[in-house]
Every structure is written in structure tokens, then in C-alpha cells.
């Protein structure tokens, strides 16, 4: 930053606020992590104490590994999240390209119709969705979840991506047309690389709710072989007894994959490659 414009007091206040926010945001994660390594008694007696030689225990992790097929749940969550994100990004970007690039009758209406989904929560339609899934025989398959999450994510994706695609220079696309690129090649080779930051934004916005969702797995795919991680963790929470060691351990492990995905996407958020394309 330019030293003439930076003021040490302002900088300190700004960083102070950001650090405070970071601490608040990380605190629950921190508590989950430390307690997952403690014995049950210590969790309740001193919830904020770090695990030491006396209180250290891996009993939670052992329970998680023994009970239920935890790796299968992991895998299910991963397939559903990655599958839905792929479909949301691919279909959303294609729809956004059509809306932003081509002039056709009803373009505006179509855009509004697609954006309508942002305002209506998909859970209102749960019963109808369940009936449809039963009719198509998709209940208790991962496809049921992938399709529902794709439908849930598409409106916002189309809305955000079409805004970004409008900003991609027309000259660039026309240069591609003159150079003999097909419309698909223009979409995949020219436009998609330029809206990559927007794609990453959409991916991050969609990823976390999908990973954490309990509602649809519980209703559409509660079978043992299609359980997601969030649903799988519920076995440790009972009406009368809750195995807190196991719950905390399961949650700690559930954070990891989503953290990795987030890091991958957020790198894209920062990278801007448009500079130099057009003046």
C-alpha cells in the first residue's frame, strides 16, 4: 500500500476488526477440534481446555470408525457435492451464455423465470419432489440428491454468470468467430476461462450448503448405502443419549474435504486473467 495514503491507526483498527472476526468465526471449529480429542468426562467438565496427557482420548474417532460405514458416507457426500457442482456450473454457464449472448424472443422473460428460483426455497416442494422421485424410482439413490441440489443451485448460478458473461468483450467473441471457432469452442475456450472467478464464486456459494444439508438426504436417500456424512453422523445423536465424542470426531473429519475444495476454488477467485485481453 502507498505509505502516503496509509494511516497506522486506520490500519491497526482495520486489522484488529478482521482478526476479531476471524477469531469469532474460528472459535466453534476450534472447540469442536479440541474436544474431539478429549474423554467424555473432560468435554463436560472443562469444554475449553486443551487436551493434555490425562484427558487425551481417541475414543470418539474409534467409535466413528467402528460404527457404521463412515468412509462410505464420506464418499457419498463427496460424490453428491462434486456431481452437483459440476452440473450446476456446466448447465448454469451454458444457460447464462445463451441468455447473455443471443438475442431471441423471450430472452428477458426466460432470464426472469430462471432467476425466480432464487426467491422460492426449494424445500417448499419437498413433498412433490419426493413423489416424483418415488415415481421415477430414484429414491435412495445419489442421483436423487444430485438432481435436487442442481435444481437448487442453478437459479443463482445463471443469474451471477450471465451478469459476468455480459462483460466479456464482444470483439473477442467475434474475433473467435472470424477465426473459425464454433459457438461451443467460443464458450469453452474463450468465455469460460474469462469468467473463471465468477465460476469459483458460484461453486463456493453452492458447495457448503450441499455438503452440510441434512434435509434432503434424510427424506430422499436415508438408506444405509446412500447416507451422506451429515446424515451418518446423526446415529450418534439420540433422543436420550448423545455420544458427544463420536459426534465431535465425525464433525472434525467432515470439515476437512470441504476445506480442501474451498482452498481450490478460492485460489481461482483471486486470480484475474482478463487483464490484457482488451484495453
Amino acid at each position, binding site marked *: 500500500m502507498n505509505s502516503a495514503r496509509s494511516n497506522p491507526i486506520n490500519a491497526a483498527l482495520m486489522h484488529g476488526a478482521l482478526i476479531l472476526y476471524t477469531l469469532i468465526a474460528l472459535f466453534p471449529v476450534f472447540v469442536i477440534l479440541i474436544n474431539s480429542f478429549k474423554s467424555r468426562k473432560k468435554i463436560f467438565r472443562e469444554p475449553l481446555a486443551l487436551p493434555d496427557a490425562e484427558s487425551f482420548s481417541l475414543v470418539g474417532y474409534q467409535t466413528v470408525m467402528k460404527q457404521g460405514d463412515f468412509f462410505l458416507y464420506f464418499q457419498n457426500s463427496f460424490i453428491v457435492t462434486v456431481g452437483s457442482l459440476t452440473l450446476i456450473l456446466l448447465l448454469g454457464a451454458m444457460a447464462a451464455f445463451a441468455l447473455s449472448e443471443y438475442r431471441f424472443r423471450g430472452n428477458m422473460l426466460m432470464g426472469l423465470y430462471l432467476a425466480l428460483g432464487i426467491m422460492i426455497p426449494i424445500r417448499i416442494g419437498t413433498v412433490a419432489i419426493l413423489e416424483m422421485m418415488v415415481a421415477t424410482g430414484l429414491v435412495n439413490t445419489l442421483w436423487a440428491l444430485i438432481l435436487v441440489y442442481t435444481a437448487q443451485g442453478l437459479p443463482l448460478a445463471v443469474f451471477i454468470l450471465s451478469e459476468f458473461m455480459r462483460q466479456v*468483450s464482444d*470483439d*473477442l467473441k467475434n474475433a473467435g*468467430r*472470424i*477465426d*473459425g471457432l464454433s459457438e461451443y469452442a467460443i464458450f469453452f475456450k474463450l468465455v469460460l476461462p*474469462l469468467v473463471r472467478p465468477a465460476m469459483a464464486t458460484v461453486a463456493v456459494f453452492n458447495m457448503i450448503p450441499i455438503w452440510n444439508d441434512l434435509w434432503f438426504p434424510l427424506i430422499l436417500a436415508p438408506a444405509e448405502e446412500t447416507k451422506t456424512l451429515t446424515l451418518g453422523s446423526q446415529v450418534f445423536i439420540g433422543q436420550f443419549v448423545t455420544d458427544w465424542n463420536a459426534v465431535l470426531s465425525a464433525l472434525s473429519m467432515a470439515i476437512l474435504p470441504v476445506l480442501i475444495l474451498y482452498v481450490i476454488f478460492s485460489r481461482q477467485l483471486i486470480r484475474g486473467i*482478463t487483464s490484457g485481453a*482488451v484495453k
Partner: protein
Amino acid sequence: MTALTLTNVHKSFGTVDVLKDINIDVEEGEFVVFVGPSGCGKSTLLRTIAGLDDVTSGEVRIGDTKVNQTPPSKRGIAMVFQSYALYPHLNVRNNMTLALKQARESKQVIEQRLAEASRMLSLEDYLDRYPSELSGGQRQRVAIGRAIVRHPKLFLFDEPLSNLDAALRMNTRLEIANLHQTLGATMIYVTHDQTEAMTLADKIVVLRDGRVEQVGSPMELYNNPANQFVAGFLGSPAMNFLPAKLLQDGDRNTLGVRPEDLFFDNDGPLEITTQHVEHLGGDTNVIATCQGHPITLRLFGQQTVTVGATRRVGILPGRSYFFDTDGIRIN
């Protein structure tokens, strides 16, 4: 042979007519400049030739072929855009060879054409750089190189110099003129800058409101404008327009005189009051009023002119133009 023929070309966006009845012939090897104020339809005309826009009616022929339904890449054209439109994620080499790769040319041909074009534009040292690592002038040269490698029948330039600074603009203008001589290719060039039009063109097409106002060589248009618009558009400083009644009582026409055809003359027919003097070194421009009408004189060399003085001015014989109330030239 004719390189491009436009016959009765109309183009409308909804109810707005952008191009009205355009008829233009371009000969092989000609450098044609479309010039006009912004919004006159010159860029749209270029885009219909390129195939980026469809014509509403009329016929576009490139060479002997009617191309109304032909996609841009199959028309044998290459286009240079105002914003360069380089592919940001490809280096210079790949930017220039993409079209050839799409057309499935052999590696040998691609290498040879790339070498030829990069030598012509002195781009050899930049082939592995990305567009973001190049200066504006270099980017524009890459954009021109991308057009050259395709060996097109027709080069289309859409205001290629507008984004460059003045000095660079002049250099690039010369480069384009040289390129036209070396390649002998047919080029169509769109600009709103009359200097570019005058210096580059074999033939100028002046457009206004989607219509062709006049077509001709630069000097033809300069010396023999068909109407007041063309007369005022070409030449800098622009032609002076005064009511003809200043010369002759009761005349309702408009008198047009170029600034360089005026000179101080104690017996001259016009009386002016000087307001401002621009010393350009080679020339001196005198901005004045003539009975309330603005008038500009362009005097050769460095002259001392008093501001606020009243002087009489004469017109070189045979250098006055007259236009009727509709702006049409009267001989």
C-alpha cells in the same frame, strides 16, 4: 476484378434503419476507407461484410461469390478490432495461429506463415509472450499479424488506431500503409478520423445516418465535395460556412471556403474580427468572427496577427463553394 460488391444493402434493428440502400464496389487491391461521424453505421456496415451481422435485404458479394449466408470464417476475410480482441490466455504465437489450426492447415504452412507475418511486423521477439505482457502498440501489431497469417481476400479494420496515443497512431498508420503496398491486398478500413481517411485511402466512402454521401478519391472529395456535409467533414481545420449574402445581397445559399483559401487583403470582400491565434510553427491558424459567424484562416508560416483587430479578408479565385438550403452543392 471486383473484390467486394454491396448491392442495395439494408440493415435494420427492429424499427431502426441503420443502413439504407448501400451500393459500393471495391476493386481488387484497393484501400477503401469508410468514414463518418459516430452512429453513422460504418461499423455496422463492416460487420455485415464480415458476416457478424446479417443484412436485412440486399446482397453482399466477396469476389464472385454471394456470401449472405456464409459464416464469417468461410468468407475469406480477416478483421482487426479496435480493442485488439487478443485471446488473453494464449501467447502471441497461438493467438496468431489459432485460425490456421482451426482450418487444419499443415504444421509447415502454419510455421511458414507465422514466420512471414512476425518478420513483417517485427514480432519475432514476442512470440512467447502473453497479451498482458505487451504494450498497446505491440498488441495492435499482434492483432494485425493475426489477420495477415490467414492470407485473406479482404482485410477489415475497425478503427484500429483509436486506442493508441498520437505518436504511435502515426507510426502504425504508416505501417498499415506499407503493409497495403507489400501485400497488395484489398483492405477496408473504418474510422471517424478524417486524417486517417485522407492519408490511407485510395477511395473514401463518406457515410451519414446509414447512407452513402459520396464516394471518391481523397482529393476528389476534398476538391469537389457533393454536399455541405462532405465539405465540412474532410479537411482540418474544417471548411468555413457563411451565409452567401455576405458577398451578394439576397443570396440565400451558403458559402463554403477552406481556411487555407483565405488571406488578408485590404480590398477583400469579408470583414473579420480576430479572436484567437494558434501558432503551429509551420502554419498559423486565425480564429475570428465575420459578422457574428465563426471563421478560420490558415496562413502559411509564422505570422504575427493582432488579436481583436478588424481586418479585411479575400478569397482565392475559384475556391469558393456554394451550397443550397438543402446542403447540395451548386456549380
